[in-house]
């Protein structure tokens, strides 16, 4: 049995003239909480639909639980719980009906877990879905996903449109379920502050291409935003940042800003030796990493460079 629950190898998918997914490779390890990040149109939903077997790839190989999602049998399909922001529950049904229905769809269905989870969202079990608020509907969908006895949870923008209270309830439910049941979670979202609370690994997509992927803590350790007063010589920068990859560089003649990958303690020492008193190195949170790694952010650089920490 492979250690990866999801394996994507050189997958491409085109819609007409739009290359929605372009040569993407990534692996989701068993037990990890994986954040799939990207701007609108980056290809997150297409990639998830490919993983769910709803679409064919034009090229490349996809594997979920070591087999092609297009050919999954019912048993394997039941191991995957899927939540999408496009998902709706039948308006004429209530949660009690749906939970009963699910108990016959899924042999490993945990009714007690579902009822406990539903209480967190203050859902009236006898209220029809058509009369529920967005937060309650999304809660009801999540309750089903975490109670079906799945091994993999695939969530496509599950938090979009929710208020902070409901976002927090959803995240708490996900975290508890992931820990209790040892779930592997793949979540795509724009809400990076929320996602940062739960993910341990991320992949950033931009215009269908994979920009970066890896352990979030590693990325935070490796990536730094550097501000240097004045305009340093290229030779000085090359020497100071030997072994690092400069992802972005910009200057406005008074200050030079850089975003570098592969930053470590020795890089810090060299910078301080060469640019003593003129250099500020900043840690970056997930949102800053995401913005810097996305092409759209380049126009704002280096205006956003702030004071050193």
């Amino acid at each position, binding site marked *: 049995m492979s250690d990866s629950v999801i394996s994507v190898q050189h997958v491409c998918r085109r*819609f007409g003239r739009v290359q929605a997914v372009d040569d993407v490779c990534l692996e989701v390890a068993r037990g990890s909480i994986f954040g799939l990040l990207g701007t609108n149109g980056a290809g997150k939903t297409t990639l998830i639909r490919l993983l*769910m*077997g*709803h*679409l*064919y*790839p034009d090229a490349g190989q*996809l594997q979920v639980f070591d087999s*092609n999602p*297009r*050919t*999954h*049998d*019912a048993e394997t*399909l*039941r191991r*995957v*719980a*899927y*939540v*999408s922001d*496009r*998902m*709706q*529950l*039948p*308006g*004429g049904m209530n949660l009690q009906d749906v939970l009963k*229905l*699910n108990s*016959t*769809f*899924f042999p490993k269905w945990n009714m007690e877990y579902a009822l406990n989870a539903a209480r967190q969202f203050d859902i009236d079990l006898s209220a029809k879905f058509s009369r529920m608020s967005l937060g309650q509907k999304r809660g009801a*969908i999540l309750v089903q996903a975490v109670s*079906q006895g799945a091994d993999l949870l695939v969530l496509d923008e599950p938090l979009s449109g929710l208020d902070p209270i409901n976002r927090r309830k959803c995240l708490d439910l996900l975290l508890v379920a992931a820990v209790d049941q040892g779930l592997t979670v793949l979540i795509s979202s724009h809400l990076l502050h929320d996602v940062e609370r739960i993910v341990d690994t991320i992949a950033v997509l931009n215009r269908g291409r994979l920009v970066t992927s890896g352990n979030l803590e590693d990325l935070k350790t490796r990536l730094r935003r550097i501000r240097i007063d004045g305009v340093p010589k290229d030779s000085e920068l090359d020497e100071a940042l030997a072994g690092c990859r400069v992802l972005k560089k910009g200057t406005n003649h008074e200050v030079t800003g850089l975003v570098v990958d592969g930053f470590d303690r020795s890089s810090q020492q060299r910078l301080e030796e060469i640019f003593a008193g003129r250099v500020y190195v900043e840690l970056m949170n997930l949102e800053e990493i995401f913005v810097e790694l996305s092409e759209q952010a380049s126009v704002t650089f280096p205006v956003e460079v702030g004071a050193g920490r």
Partner: protein
Amino acid sequence: MNLTFCRYLLWTMRTELIVGCVGMTLLVLLRSEPFLSWRVGNVRLMADSFALLMTAIGIAVSLRVFHDPPGVSVWLQARGMTRRTICQTRFLTGLLVLAALLAWLGILMSTGIRQAVQLSFDSPWFPMVRWHELKVIPQLALCAALPFSAVTLLLTASRTDDSLYPGGWTTISAIAGLLVSFLAIEWIVHSSSMGTVVAVLLLLSGLAVAVALSAISEQHAS
């Protein structure tokens, strides 16, 4: 076939089923003309409103079992069923609904309920035609099953990969299914036993192709 999904589909259609059954009951009980003329094969589809009604019901049932409210199909796809199971269950549920409607017609005719109503209207045809009228059931079954099969086939074909088709494909399928069914039934009702055999073959081939298409969609990427 997934029985839970079948139950769910029937539950979602409950209003239409009740209205359809009540409407059909009234139409059958109050129809003063006997269905006899169909037996000799000289009645054309356009000339018989009941045949047209059954054609419409076949199309409506097909569209109903294959169409979910926006977002609900995404939820159903995540209930642990393969595409083949979903397709087969929808198809067989549709056939079950049509069979139930026809069985209800048969009950109305065979138990003498229609006869009793017609006698109360002083119909000159009853009780003479009571048992002979039952022979119309297979013909009505074809009138409903053929368009059901044709529309289902087109809908299934259009969903092997939904992103490949434009949004209006369902409408185009329905119109195409209606046209094909109409022409086929015109010919079948007008002709005799040979037409019935061809119709049954068409129906079975529709089922086979629908199942094959769903299987192809699952095997395509393997």
